């Protein structure tokens, strides 16, 4: 009985046909191209390390020790927001299962009626009325669903994303409903951090120049070309203007409750200006909805539990012997890689807490709400 009853939860993200990569048992979800994300990380960590190493000692002594402390806090917050944006599910819509796809196909055919041969069938569009505005829902041929309003298909990740904003290569992920506020906080705090570092760089140079003279100060810049303070100052300067610009742009979008995608396509501008059906026509309300709205669950990492029969059998046979874990026990199936099978067979666990309904609790293992850094630290 013991070997037979070991089952493995095949998580939804493992079956996701899109072009995403997953790590840490589904906790981390990113796009395939991650090169620019590593560059972003390197630039931020590199610049801040140089600031902490070369400028902070002087500033702490001559001005105030609060300066480096605040810089550290800001730096940690920026990294947290970056990792949160990069690693969380942006709001991917799972593709339709075959029965649902067939049901929709039948509905479309019924609506179209008889199309004479040789003629192209009409485009698959559904019209819905939202706040007295007709919105067209397009059919996604890849995901086989009618996309909800504001959703769009990302060709890089090959997924439909809810409230799709844009695909950001700098964070290595799409920006959508679930991670937009983290993305906005990332751009905002990075702008603040860049301004902070740049400002204190200037202060540092001025203070040293007062003591030693300007040219001497420049000569004594720590480090060797290209990895010296001057290069990073330059990087800081350009980053500052692009980040401040981007933050300003997104603040404008949030106040109008628009996405970058809608702005680029001009859905609610030009002759349609002022007709955005999602806007509350009030800047505060729009900001509150986007930034202070509920934290939506992931539809990819919300995995199915086995039925109550298996669960209760597990509880009775295993709970007495083995420590409580939130993973389900494992069965190797055709999806399990061969090298993992022996370890899977050996692994024991008991089911989740008692009396939970089958599709209820999100175990922390597969929850994207888990802080990415701590989960990675745990796994490494």
């Amino acid at each position, binding site marked *: *009985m013991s070997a*037979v*009853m070991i*089952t493995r*939860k*095949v998580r939804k993200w493992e*079956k996701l046909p899109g072009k995403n990569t997953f790590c840490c048992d589904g906790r981390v979800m990113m796009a395939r191209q991650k090169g620019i994300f590593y560059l972003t990380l390197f630039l931020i960590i590199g610049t801040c390390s140089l600031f902490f190493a070369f400028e902070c000692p002087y500033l702490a002594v001559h001005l105030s020790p609060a300066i480096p402390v605040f810089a550290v806090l800001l730096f*940690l*917050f920026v990294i*947290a927001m970056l990792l*949160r944006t990069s690693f969380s599910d942006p709001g991917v*819509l*799972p593709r*339709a*299962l075959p*029965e*649902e796809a067939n*049901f929709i196909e039948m509905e479309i055919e019924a609506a179209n009626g008889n199309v004479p041969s040789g003629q192209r069938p009409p485009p698959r569009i559904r019209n*819905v009325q*939202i*706040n007295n505005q007709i*919105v067209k*829902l397009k059919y996604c041929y890849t995901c086989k*669903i009618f996309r*909800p*309003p*504001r959703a769009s298909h990302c060709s890089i990740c090959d997924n439909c994303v809810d*409230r799709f904003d844009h695909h950001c290569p700098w964070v290595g992920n799409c920006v959508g409903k679930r991670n937009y506020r*983290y993305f906005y*906080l990332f751009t905002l705090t990075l702008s603040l951090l860049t301004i902070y570092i740049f400002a204190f760089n200037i202060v540092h140079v001025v203070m040293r120049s007062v003591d030693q003279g300007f040219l001497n100060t420049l000569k004594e810049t720590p480090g060797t070309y290209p990895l010296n303070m001057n290069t990073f100052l330059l990087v800081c300067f350009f980053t500052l203007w692009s980040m401040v610009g981007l933050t300003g742009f997104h603040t404008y979008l949030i106040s109008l409750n628009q996405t970058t995608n809608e702005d680029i396509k001009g859905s609610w501008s030009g002759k349609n200006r002022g007709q955005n059906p*999602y806007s509350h026509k009030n800047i505060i309300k729009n900001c*509150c909805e986007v*930034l*202070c*709205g*509920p*934290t939506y*669950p992931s*539809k990819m990492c*919300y995995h*199915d539990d*086995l*039925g*109550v*029969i*298996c669960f209760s*059998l597990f509880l009775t046979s295993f709970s007495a012997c083995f420590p409580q874990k939130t993973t389900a026990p494992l*069965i190797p*199936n*055709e*999806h399990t890689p061969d090298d993992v099978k022996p370890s899977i067979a050996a692994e024991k666990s008991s089911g989740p807490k008692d009396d939970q*309904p*089958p*599709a*209820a*609790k*999100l175990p922390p293992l597969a929850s994207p*709400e888990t*802080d990415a850094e*701590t989960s990675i630290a745990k796994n490494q």
Partner: protein
Amino acid sequence: MKNAGLRCFLYSINEQIRALAGSHPKSVLTGFKCVQTHSLQDLQQPAVSSKVFVQRDYSSGTICKFQTKFPSELESRMDKQQFEETMQTLNNLYAEAEKIGGKSYLEGFLACLTAYTIFLCMETHYEKVLKKIARYIKDQNEKIYAPRGLLLTDPIERGLRVVEITIFEDRSVGSGR
């Protein structure tokens, strides 16, 4: 009626296992060795069923709301009132999950202060309501839908796009109740 209800319940378990095991018949069978074999044989025969999908209602915007229109395929199985009540309750629960008010502001503010690490120990309000919804659907299935040979699937399993209702055809000739 009892037969259809039990078959419906076991079918739902089988369906979930089948979906999880990638429709591999062997893994389904090994998973069920401990269960009474007569029901397993029942499951091995193709279950005659069809599915109805209740779509989202976007008339109020992008909030999660399902259409309450009674599907014609269910007309012979249950009454309209009951179905509309179920859908209305579901819509109310989702509205509660997505409500933007003092509580969601507080949650968001606290979470932001802790750089969202607070969600390591705390469940979000939405997740709490999703559990409530799962309990409600299970309850409805047990009390109302399973006795009529129907099965409601929790919309979160379908990405909050549709409410899937599986209709089981009663095998026996006649009413079968």
